């Protein structure tokens, strides 16, 4: 009988209750509230959905190096221009991950980097446009515990 990785994870869901009792020492985590506050500080208001696409693996093979990409639908000229994109993660010790700043010379509002995720959590990207509008996208990335020194 063959299972794919997702099914294997589903199988293990039963094990989560057990694991939640705390096999690992946990540091204080940013949590949803602090993450929201961080987003509001950056955006000035609650972002709308749309325009921005955040790409991240559904299941990260290792939480220490997770590739993430952002792309904002924008002509990158005159008023239709992305000023900055902030990436935050709500399950890390601090929500801040990185903030990209674009210019007219960027040509496109797209960027890729690699990030650290301490556990399964939401990664959120917020785009601030030149006209003051703000947009966000959110992806949950599952971070698994490796078998071998992982």
């Amino acid at each position, binding site marked *: *009988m063959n299972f794919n990785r997702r099914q*294997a994870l589903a199988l293990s869901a039963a094990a989560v209750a057990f694991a939640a009792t705390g096999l690992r020492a946990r540091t204080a985590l940013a949590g949803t509230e602090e*993450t*929201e506050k961080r987003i509001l500080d950056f955006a000035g208001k609650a972002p709308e959905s749309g325009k921005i696409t955040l790409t991240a*693996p559904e299941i990260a*093979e290792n939480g220490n*190096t997770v590739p993430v990409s952002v792309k904002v639908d924008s002509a990158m000229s005159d008023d239709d221009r992305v000023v900055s994109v902030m990436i935050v993660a709500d399950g890390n010790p601090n929500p801040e991950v990185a903030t990209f700043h674009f210019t007219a010379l960027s040509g496109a509002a797209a960027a890729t980097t690699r990030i650290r995720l301490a556990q399964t959590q939401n990664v959120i990207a917020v785009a601030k446009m030149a006209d003051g509008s703000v947009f966000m996208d959110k992806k949950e990335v599952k971070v698994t515990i490796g078998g071998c020194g992982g």
Partner: protein
Amino acid sequence: MSKRFLAPVFAMVGGLVLAFSANADPVDEELVIDDIPMVTRAAAPEGHPFDEVLSGWLFREAETRETEADSFANPGMLAVERGADIWNTVEGSAGKSCASCHDDAATSMKSVGAQYPKWDAEAKRPINIELQIDKCRVENMGAEPYKFDAEGQVALTSYIKHQSLGTPVKMDLSDGELQDWWEKGKELYYTRTGQLNFACASCHEDSMGKYIRADHLSQGQANGFPTYRFNTGGMVSLHNRFRGCIRDTRAEMPKAFSDELMALEVYVTWRGTGLSVETPAVRQ
């Protein structure tokens, strides 16, 4: 007060507690690095427990595979570049660098890494790239041998092995007494050790393709070492990985380059006969 716009999430701390719980096939994809096609599946040599030897690349997730396939995105190439600097740097009392004798590694070291370990007739034991570098440093350069896993040792080994990128692994077991060391390595490969009572074969042969917690178990091939690991954000040498595996079985770890681990290197390298050298491979 602002309206909440992020749905609360339940932190999922746990993972898979069922060892060897599920099976998944390695991917059926081609690996091409810098326009060089890699052999990631090869017919096993005679006497091999598998019909086909498989590169660990086939067992990794898409993001890990893509990082290895793009030699710019591969952070292991930082170590290779560092190795190139060391290759050209004079060290030791003889006033020589590697390049003083071996000139351009792209020519002199081409395919060399695919043939190691070899037999060292003077020392009467197998010699790998790391030990060959030390031999050169001591005998020809008048320099100190590297400490195990010194940054320079890993970088230079990565650089030399990278000159064989794409070349299929092919050892000559008829060289000196390598066949005896192969036998000894084979015995170790199947010997259960540690509190967990695992042999190399428990994971990489009997359970190959299954998951141990969240790790998809490969055949445990050596063709991509030294390899870049996402976990540590750095290079991992073969003997470091051997010791790591042995530590994970909760056994006493033999020293790097000890007789035990040299025998294991001979045997494990042979198990990957026909696979392209992928150094620096990228793993989780």
